[in-house]
């Protein structure tokens, strides 16, 4: 019977293995391969042989096209990478801390808990691009409700006003708007996971704290956070990876061109690493896209390993 099951098992797995081989495993190897091809033409598969030029062009200013304006180097190292890094550094800690506080607050109430839970989950079941467009309207320079509420006169967050001649969008304003949106959009998932973790914490820890009459914030800091550390670590790693792959929010807020900022204030637009990759694919420069995607993969790997290493001492299982 055991031997009979052997081929049977593989038969059941066959559709998945065939699909994965074609659309997952082969592409991984092929992307690595293409990233080392010079002027690769994906339609007929021809190239001018092996080279490191794609990596040199994307990562250094020393390629034949140089490191000037609109070079590959400019697009990646001076625009996409700083944008991606800043978005990650800003949105990951804010969204984790905020969702943790919300989850703890939600866990401590009884009345209206279901209603609040539903409300806080709503951004998860939305279309990132559709709601991004809503935020563009909210952050409108002339008629946006954000400027209206905070009494800001024609402050440009996403697009310059047609009524203010020569207005440019400050890079940091654009960064604020998109970070606001990303945090808003990423809260529900984190709240859900943290709430799940909180409900699994044994009530006796809190009873002990109550007997010691420890204040609530101290209970949260000394009991809840350490007991929730596996979830926090999981959340840190996944949101880190997610933030590094930010794309839809850029398209939703700034449109398919990633916007345009005042160059004196920072990078020229809000393109991210993934934005650069897809942009290059659409422009038939898959060799640059491949090199950039391998680079992105390595960064993600590195940061995940570091986080794992650091948290080994701090996470209680």
């Amino acid at each position: 019977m055991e031997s009979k099951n052997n081929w049977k098992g593989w038969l059941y797995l066959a559709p998945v293995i065939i699909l994965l081989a074609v659309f997952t495993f082969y592409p991984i190897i092929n992307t690595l391969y293409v990233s080392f091809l010079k002027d690769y033409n994906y339609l007929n598969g021809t190239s001018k042989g092996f080279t490191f030029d794609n990596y040199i062009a994307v990562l250094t200013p020393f390629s034949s096209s140089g490191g000037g304006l609109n070079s590959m180097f400019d697009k990646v190292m001076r625009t996409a990478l700083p944008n991606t890094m800043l978005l990650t550094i800003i949105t990951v800690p804010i969204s984790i801390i905020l969702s943790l506080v919300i989850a703890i607050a939600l866990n401590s109430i009884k009345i209206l808990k279901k209603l609040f839970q539903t409300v806080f989950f709503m951004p998860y079941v939305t279309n990132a691009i559709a709601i991004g467009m809503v935020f563009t309207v909210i952050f409108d320079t002339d008629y946006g409700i954000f400027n209206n509420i905070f009494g800001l006169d024609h402050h440009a967050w996403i697009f310059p006003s047609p009524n203010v001649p020569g207005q440019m969008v400050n890079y940091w304003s654009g960064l604020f708007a998109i970070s606001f949106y990303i945090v808003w959009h990423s809260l529900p998932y984190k709240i859900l996971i943290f709430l799940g973790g909180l409900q699994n914490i044994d009530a006796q820890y809190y009873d002990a704290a109550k007997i010691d009459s420890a204040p609530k914030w101290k209970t949260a800091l000394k009991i809840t956070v350490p007991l929730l550390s596996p979830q926090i670590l999981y959340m840190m790693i996944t949101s880190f990876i997610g933030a590094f792959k930010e794309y839809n929010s850029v398209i939703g807020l700034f449109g398919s061109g990633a916007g345009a900022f005042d160059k004196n204030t920072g990078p020229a637009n809000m393109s991210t690493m993934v934005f650069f990759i897809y942009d290059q694919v659409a422009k038939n420069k898959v060799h640059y896209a491949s090199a950039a995607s391998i680079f992105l993969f390595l960064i993600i790997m590195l940061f995940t390993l570091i986080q794992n290493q650091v948290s080994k001492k701090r996470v209680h299982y």
Partner: protein
Amino acid sequence: MAKQKQNYPYAAETSGYVLALKGSDASTATKEKVDKVAHVFQLIVTYLFLALMGVIIIFPFYWMIITSLKTGEEIQQSVQTFFPHVIRWENYTEALTRLDFPVLLRNTLLVGIISTLGTLITTILAAYAFARLTFKGRDFIFMILLGSMMIPGEMMVISNYISVSRLGWTASGNYFGNFSAMIVPFWVSIFYIYLLRQNFKQIPNELYLAAKVDGKSDWEFLWKVMVPLAMPTLTTIFILKLMGAWNSYVWPNLIASGNKNIFLITNGLRETFSAADNVNDYGAQMAATVIVTVPLLLLFIFFRKYIMRGVGRAGIKG
């Protein structure tokens, strides 16, 4: 102590233990009072905080809906109104025609349903193999699948685009190819295999043995016993996958490369209302975003339990 004895003279005759309890009575009462006040205060702060955050979460939805009903003039008032003075339903008819909504809906449902059904079939078969069958290399393959989840999808998108282009699936006019390109690569999901495998594993082995005694084959057991028992998980997968198709942008955008006849709903939305549009357009634009958002919210209302369970499951292994 002496003072307390005076307060409770009869207690003094009994044991010292009772006396101690009674003695601390007064301070316990005040302490309870203080605790109660602190507790109420904490509750108020908690509710205020949650309400504030709730308003921030809800506000974009609210703003989307009321802007979708406003006239161009009202949108361009210097002070924004929180409820439309004149309700303009024409924004919706305008949005529907400009989006070419029937075509977008047809394409999205076609891609969504076929890719979802395909995923369900491959997922059921694979999860069954991983959960019930024993064969050489099973655990090894499972580890490889889980490991491959860590590799960013962008790396695969590039090569898959090359592959489907070589097959001629991106050629304009080749509708069968175009839709195949949007469907076939998504017929497998490692995460859902993992999810369903966990579910299958919970089904007691006795059922399997009983089915064997009844002369049922593995195949019959899978479809007549396992699948019906795992219906909640399968529903979760169905809903989440359908929502994924509704929200997918990158891949269909690459495949369609501007051909409006094969746009999915999100591509249609983004292309129809380019970001630099003028303010007069905001009404119709927000109406279009409402049209795209409402089906998702309806799914959420009706399948809340399934969606939240499926999404929440991801964190448990953490």
